[in-house]
């Protein structure tokens, strides 16, 4: 499983690095259209070839990485920022109406797949990249709330929590100082999983036009534009898809590796 962790880290690192690099430099300027150079196959000048508008696909893919990773990252932030406190609250007030309210609220949001949330938001406010972030973010909230509550519940029965109570600490302080650090490793693993799911969801949303809008490059929209040209120039449809697969694969391997590293008991099972 060590190999998985290293391979995953390398793939995810590559995606992150190209996203970061694209903020300063791309091999070609994608705001310049060169129709004469359209649909060129991969070559020394254009490693991944060019698209139907003559834009360099490598440069587009790097910029697309930035969109994908940024959307998924902020969505994980929203999910953790709201879900973790809700989960901690539910665990601290387990069995009360507050716990019940959080859990039933979770169930309600769970009935709305992120695509459906995005459809609703787009119908009301019109399409934009922010929709994708909000839709995936909302979808992430109950995920983190459940994981946090589930992991925090057994911790509340432990002796050192009782000691903290005797010392006069309130539920909020105990949640922050004692419960949160003990569920943190689980949350990091979950964050990696939601991050990779977020990249898949963002690709799907921008593919159907509910995510990033032109001229912001995104992997999903590159695929949508490539669809009619895939027969003429397969590389236009293959490269963005490979970017998605490799990034998601990398993050999943990283998540699995981190989970195994944080819980030695799992190694025996696998």
């Amino acid at each position, binding site marked *: 499983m060590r190999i998985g962790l290293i391979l995953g880290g390398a793939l995810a690192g590559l995606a992150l690095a190209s996203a970061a690099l694209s903020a300063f430099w791309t091999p070609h300027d994608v705001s310049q259209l060169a129709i004469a150079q359209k649909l060129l196959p991969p070559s020394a000048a254009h490693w991944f070839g060019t698209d139907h508008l003559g834009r360099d696909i490598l440069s587009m893919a790097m910029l697309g990485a930035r969109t994908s990773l940024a959307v998924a990252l902020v969505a994980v932030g929203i999910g953790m920022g709201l879900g973790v406190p809700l989960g901690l609250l539910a665990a601290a007030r387990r069995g009360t109406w507050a716990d019940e309210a959080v859990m039933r609220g979770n*169930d*309600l949001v*769970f*009935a*709305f*797949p*992120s*695509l*459906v949330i995005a*459809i*609703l938001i*787009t*119908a*009301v406010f019109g399409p934009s990249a922010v929709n994708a972030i909000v839709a995936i973010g909302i979808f992430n909230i109950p995920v983190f709330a459940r994981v946090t509550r589930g992991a925090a519940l057994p911790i509340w029965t432990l002796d050192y929590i009782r000691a903290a109570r005797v010392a006069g600490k309130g539920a909020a302080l105990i949640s922050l100082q004692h419960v949160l650090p003990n569920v943190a490793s689980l949350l990091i693993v979950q964050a990696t999983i939601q991050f*990779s799911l977020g990249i*898949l969801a963002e*690709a*799907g949303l921008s*593919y*159907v*036009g509910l995510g990033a809008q032109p001229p912001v490059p995104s992997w*999903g929209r590159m*695929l949508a534009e*490539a*669809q009619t040209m*895939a*027969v003429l120039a*397969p590389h236009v*449809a*293959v490269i*963005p*898809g490979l970017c*998605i*697969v*490799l990034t*998601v*694969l990398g993050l*999943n*391997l990283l998540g699995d590796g981190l989970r195994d590293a944080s819980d030695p008991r799992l190694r025996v*099972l*696998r």
Partner: protein
Amino acid sequence: MLRYLSRRMIVMGLSLLAASALIFSVTELVPGDPASFMLGTGAQPETLAALRQQMGLDQPLPLRYAAWAGAILQGDFGTSFTYRTPVAGMILERLQVSLPLAVMALALAVAVALPVGLYAAARRGRAGDGLVMAATQLGIALPNFWFAMLLVLVFAVKLRWLPAGGFPGWSDPAAALGSLILPSLALALPQAAILARVLRSALVETQGQDYIRTARAKGLTTGQTLRRHALRNALIPVLTILGMQFSFLLAGAIIIENVFYLPGLGRMIFQAITQRDLIVVQSAVLVLVAAVIAVTFLVDLAYAAVDPRLRRA
């Protein structure tokens, strides 16, 4: 069992109520109301007010929600702004494509995941297991719509075995099923990968249990213990994932319909969004969410069927 059933039904009813109220209030945020939309910008204020009154739009929000929900319970989803036809009929027509697609995909996912999961669990730690697990990692990372494009390139464009898109209608069942094969394959395989992994780890987890050791001791092979004893006990996590996968499949179907130009619910939603036909979007979203809630209910029932202990809960 009756108590478990009635409690689950009450939860489902409340979820439907809350979800529909949420959908209704969100779509209420849109500036402008159906009356001003129907009359256009040049309408006289008096005509507008009269139409509003006629349509009940001058009522407070809770009353309007009650009227809307009451009509839906009687099968009346309202009338599409653009097509001037009942939305209920439109949705029913589109479901004839989307529902078979989702069901075919789910069946296919289970049909692939079950033998793969069993095989990997039986070969745990060996080369076969490693290979299968690596393949499922790849499957999970695959965006279904991209996979769909690749399937079209290979099976429709190169080999010409199956149509690249479109839907001939159910009057020709064989052609209709044929046009759903590639879409359901694209939807099913990534989900099968997830399902196979969950099944494998659930099966592996049962291997330390006493009843498995007993089964082995009385002479059953690894495969036999897995199929006869471990599988039933591994079903709870598998059912949970299956239930969640149905909502992924529904959402995925919306996207996949766009790849294959299938006239399903998903295509209808995107057309409605571009046409600002809000009542169609609202109704279609309600149908999708209701389907997810109904499946959650069915999964709860399946839990009780699989695990008798839960019936007393």
